[in-house]
């Protein structure tokens, strides 16, 4: 989920795909790894960062995601985070990760 309303630039909260991530982990010698474990892997974090950079390269400056947060917490359907059909609940995600989103911007301003 991309955020940035009232902020100096865009940032994103990213969650792993519950189908693709375990399949990737199994192919890379970690069958049965949880989403939390997969999200914590340095190679996964590096791959996500590279993918964000690649997407950013094709966007004008104001539309680039300058910071992102990769979360390993499962996002169940019909929860505060997703609808029953898997659509994002922006309000719920924003509330759940409010402190983390603030921290994304705080890191930058205190650097």
């Amino acid at each position: 989920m991309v955020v940035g309303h009232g902020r100096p630039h865009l940032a994103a909260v990213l969650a792993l795909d519950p189908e693709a991530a375990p399949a990737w982990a199994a192919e890379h010698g970690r069958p049965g790894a949880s989403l939390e474990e997969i999200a914590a892997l340095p190679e996964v974090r590096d791959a996500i960062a590279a993918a964000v950079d690649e997407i950013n390269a094709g966007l004008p400056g104001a539309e680039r995601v300058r910071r992102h947060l990769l979360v390993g917490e499962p996002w169940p359907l019909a929860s505060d985070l997703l609808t029953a059909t898997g659509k994002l609940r922006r309000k719920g995600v924003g509330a759940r990760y409010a402190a983390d989103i603030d921290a994304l911007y705080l890191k930058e301003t205190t650097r």
Partner: protein
Amino acid sequence: MTTLPTLPPVVHEFLAAVEKRDAAAVAACFTEDGSYAMAVPHPAVDGRAAIEAAFVRVLGEVDATRWELVTSGVAGDLVFLERVDRFWFGEKEAAIECLGVVRIVDGRIAEIRDYADIATWRERKAAAQGSAQG
């Protein structure tokens, strides 16, 4: 495989509660630490309160629903339910085929793992809601 009359009573209670759109009664069918996965591999909601909240959302947006059993079977503490879950938005129906694996503990549902194609469900629901609103 066995047939429908041999299913544990709580399975019938669960289906009846769904049809009544009574999220509290649905949640009451589960153990306190029960879990419900709406579409594996999407993560489950855990605990009776979270299950009730999920069903409030699902059942609250439809005008009627009926989860029909096609076939069923029991193996030990597991119950297998081949279902067609039907939802009505106004007079428009959206149905999704589903296989539910239900684990029973002490007469309550400890876990349901539903296997359904969420993309198909999303398309059918959108079509029904579009028709209902149009």
